[in-house]
């Protein structure tokens, strides 16, 4: 046929390779070229991370890291609970088997810091030969840097995703009742009461299961101006009027306005009920909102409002944070190569991709101001705005103490007893008395 183009096999192969190379070069997480990424070429490192959507996204990007640096990565995926156990056992044994690990800072920060299980990172960050010039540590904002820093200014971990306690509500139901957006706990309670029409719609949803219920009560305490610990972090503040009042509010909402069986709910059950349109107000981690906007799973698409966690006269609306971070094993043998991995994974381009594709709530503040990010993200702009707003006033949603798991268990059991009708003040006093010796022991360590 005249004028038709019939490429040879070699030409087709060449075009294919060209396209592949072109697509690699255009990868949105490509790094700036003015840094020697190849300085640790030929090294091998072991990276351990939990199973989560954004770490799954990261796992797929690992070949690009190897291409960029020449460093081979053995990437181990371990479920979160088992990862915590594995890390504790490996570190107790001072094993060099893991080079880089994901650390749940809200659980491990104090224990690991006290035991010397985090490699201090300041010397790497301050070294221009090891850290790219465009890295910008301060971009992580107050939520990220808070969790990555020890009190003495030592950086022990690089922020990744944050669990962000905020507020999700049915804006269509709010509009029907003429309610204005909620910014205080009193307004939250009023909205819950106004919208409670069971069994069609329950005013409130919350976690009742022990351990899981701590951040819910904790965020209410913070909202009323209280906290878990005093400013020096040497005194439990779990029997203050704010803590008791928060417990009363929590127990009342759970007992009278939450779906039947909420005492045994973790976030999944509450999320399911909200997704099916059975709940009006849900203060919890805002990353759980992903299915609300999925038309194949949700009955509330486009009907959900997002906001920071309500506050009070003593506290403006805030975000209750729990941090997942990347840390280096102090007993590891390839620390420079490990650091290069940590800087790459926490670089702005990689974070951008993990946040837009993997639903990670990163704390790099510049990303939230980027119009490209709003365009690339699957969640509505209102959700992104609420996240950015909550991150401006971050408050740890769990106490910073060594035995945080035991704290969650002890006070979690007390909270379930309150839902069943127990007296909040008496139960909080008993739980505080029970936990106090462990707390003191932790302080000494």
């Amino acid at each position, binding site marked *: 046929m005249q004028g038709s183009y019939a490429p040879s096999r070699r030409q087709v192969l060449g075009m294919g390779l060209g396209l592949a190379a072109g697509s690699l070069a255009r990868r949105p997480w490509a790094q700036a070229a003015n840094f020697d990424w190849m300085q640790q070429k030929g090294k091998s490192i072991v990276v351990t991370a939990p199973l989560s959507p954004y770490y799954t996204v990261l796992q797929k990007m690992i070949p690009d890291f190897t291409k960029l640096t020449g460093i081979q990565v053995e990437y181990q995926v371990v479920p979160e609970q088992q990862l915590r156990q594995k890390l504790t056992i490996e570190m107790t044994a001072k094993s060099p088997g893991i080079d880089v690990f994901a650390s749940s800072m809200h659980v491990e920060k104090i224990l690991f810091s006290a035991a010397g299980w985090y490699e201090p990172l300041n010397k790497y960050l301050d070294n221009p030969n090891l850290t790219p010039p465009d890295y910008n540590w301060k971009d992580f904002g107050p939520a990220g840097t808070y969790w990555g820093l020890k009190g003495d200014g030592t950086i022990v971990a690089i922020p990744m995703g944050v669990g962000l306690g905020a507020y999700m509500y049915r804006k269509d139901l709010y509009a029907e009742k003429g309610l204005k957006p909620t910014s205080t706990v009193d307004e939250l309670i009023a909205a819950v009461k106004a919208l409670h029409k069971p069994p069609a719609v329950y005013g409130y949803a919350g976690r009742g*299961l022990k351990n899981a219920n701590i951040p819910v009560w904790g965020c209410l305490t913070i909202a009323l101006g209280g906290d878990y610990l005093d400013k020096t972090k040497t005194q439990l503040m779990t029997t203050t009027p704010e803590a008791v009042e928060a417990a009363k509010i929590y127990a009342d909402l759970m007992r009278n306005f939450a779906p039947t069986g909420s005492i*045994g709910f973790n976030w999944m059950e509450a999320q399911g009920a909200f997704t099916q349109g059975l709940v009006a107000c849900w203060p919890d981690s805002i990353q759980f909102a992903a299915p609300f906007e999925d038309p194949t799973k949700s009955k509330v698409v486009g009907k959900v409002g997002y906001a920071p966690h309500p506050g009070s006269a003593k506290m403006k609306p805030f975000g209750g944070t729990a941090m997942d971070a990347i840390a280096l094993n102090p007993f590891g043998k390839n620390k420079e190569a490990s650091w290069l991995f940590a800087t790459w994974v926490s670089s702005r381009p990689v974070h951008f991709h993990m946040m837009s594709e993997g639903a990670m709530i990163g704390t790099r503040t510049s990303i939230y101001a980027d119009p490209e990010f709003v365009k690339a993200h699957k969640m509505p702009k209102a959700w992104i705005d609420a996240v950015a707003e909550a991150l401006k006033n971050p408050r740890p949603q769990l106490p910073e103490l060594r035995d945080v798991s035991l704290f969650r268990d002890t006070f979690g059991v007390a909270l379930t007893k309150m839902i069943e009708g127990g007296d909040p003040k008496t139960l909080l006093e008993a739980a505080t008395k029970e936990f106090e010796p462990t707390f003191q022991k932790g302080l000494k360590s």
Partner: protein
Amino acid sequence: MAVGARTLPSPRRARRGLGRHVYTLMILPAVVTILLIIAYPLVYTLWMAVHEYSMGAAGPPPFIGLANYRQLLANQRFLEAIPRTFLFTAIGVLGPTVLGTVAALVFARPFPGRGLLRTVFSLPMMATPVSVALIWQMMFHPQLGILNYLLSLVGIGPQPWIFSRTSALPSLALVETWQWTPFVMLIVLGGLAALPTEPYEAARIDGASRWQVIRYVTIPLVWPYIMVAIILRAIDALKTFDIIYVMTQGGPGTASETLNIFLYLQAFAFFNIGFASAVVVVYFLILMVMSVGLMITRQKTSWQ
């Protein structure tokens, strides 16, 4: 005697000489392996139980004698977990034993489609406990679960299942029963297939009804097999961890916290390894006493 032929040493000489040491050497690998696999962890557990051993603590763990055991005996949650564990075990043994035996009696008689139905009936046993737990957790959801929907079809109101302090443990035992009834059925079915036919012929000649045959011939004859199923089930139910942890984590509150869950929390959530080791020792003793008791019962019920 042919040239070069040698006589073998007598057995007595062999025992006295090198042969005796050869026998010892031959069993040595097995002894060492057993010591390493069983005895060492046991001794190490006993050692940890008398130390304040906590992961992350600086320095060697201090010796504290029997303090962990004393603390254990004063621990309200531990004391509450013991009867709870036995209650769960009792339901988890009784349910599968009764239903499994009935199922075995049904499936022992030939009927069309028996092979297929027997396979289908055995499926729960083959499923991974964690998957089973996750599926049942969804089915138990008070608002969205299928179980309450099915109850609503027959006019029964919604139940809280695992989401209530009072019904959590029985609901978990229900899952245990669902999963392990086929296990009992298979054991009893094997027993039924091995029964002699003469007692049945004699019972028929004597004019026994079908129920009387089951009551006075089948059950007594198959009882040793049922006892084997009970022993295995009891040990297994006593150790149940996965479905409880996945579905309730011992909650609501501590309503379904069995010894296993208590032990897990102490060891792997709170990292109180010394205290957890004391729990292990006590738990091990409970298991031993129960197993030996059941073994003795089984000996008494076996055919003479």
